[in-house]
């Protein structure tokens, strides 16, 4: 049972390190996918927004970690 728990923990850990980063990335993807399906946002614009959004989330996550470590 311990082994199963360990593997599950490892599986989750593969995708989630900074919870905020993972959550924001999922929200970004959901919002863009919804905008493409529901308000006819051009898919290519959605893809470009995804790229920019991911970079913004990465900057914020790294900045927060660096600031926290230097306190």
């Amino acid at each position: 049972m311990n082994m199963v728990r360990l593997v599950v923990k490892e599986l989750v850990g593969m995708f989630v390190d900074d919870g905020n980063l993972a959550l924001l990335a999922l929200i970004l993807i959901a919002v863009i996918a919804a905008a493409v399906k529901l308000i006819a946002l051009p898919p290519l614009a959605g893809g470009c927004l995804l790229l920019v959004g991911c970079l913004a989330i990465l900057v914020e996550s790294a900045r927060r970690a660096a600031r926290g470590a230097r306190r």
Partner: protein
Amino acid sequence: MHGLTPILSTVTASFLASFVEVVEAFTIVLAVGVTRSWRPALTGAALALAVLAALVLIFGPLLALVPITVLQFVVGVLLILFGMRWLRKAILRSVGVIALHDEEQAFSKETAALQRQANDRRADYLAALASFKAVLLEGVEVVFIVIAVGAAHGQTLYASLGALAAFILVMLIGLAVHKPLARVPENSLKFVVGLMLTSFGVFWTGEGIGAEWPGADLALLGIFAIIAVASFAIVRWLRSAYPATAEGVAR
């Protein structure tokens, strides 16, 4: 999508990512082999490889049942999460917020733990278990990487070859030097892999929502270049905004 660009990027991403994971597993198996004996080390590793093979054989065929756009979207999302996690960690290690991964240290830690268990009646079992866990946990990541970079465009074979090449290379180097591969530039590799996996993730999630990227497969290189430039800019900015005051916290 069977041009040279996606094949090369698939093989490279799979090879580099698997290389990092295999090096980490190798360190633990080596520690078990040197400290206890090679029998539990290799038994644990072989059992873990058998479990991984069973997982691939059971779940691999199921992927063929998933519609390609759904597969691209799901794999793309997972790759964004996975790739950005690696990229974030590599950036933070580059600026000294997190300590660099040290194979020598991991080896010493595992060796010390095994020595403490040396008089235990179950010492062989515990040693095999340590080897099994290391190979299984790092192997799960390799399996995910191979499936993720390969499955969305039917290139699992190329991705598998990349992973296999990494495995063989680490084994050959390991057999030759017979000590932890501490000189592998792990953070640089992780940085590049993080860039590649995030690029794949953005590319496929985009395709999953219907985007037709300009230049088709070549757009992958453009996305990679944009993320790479941005990431190096983040490193430079963090170094100047938050100068290092310590060695970084080991994680």
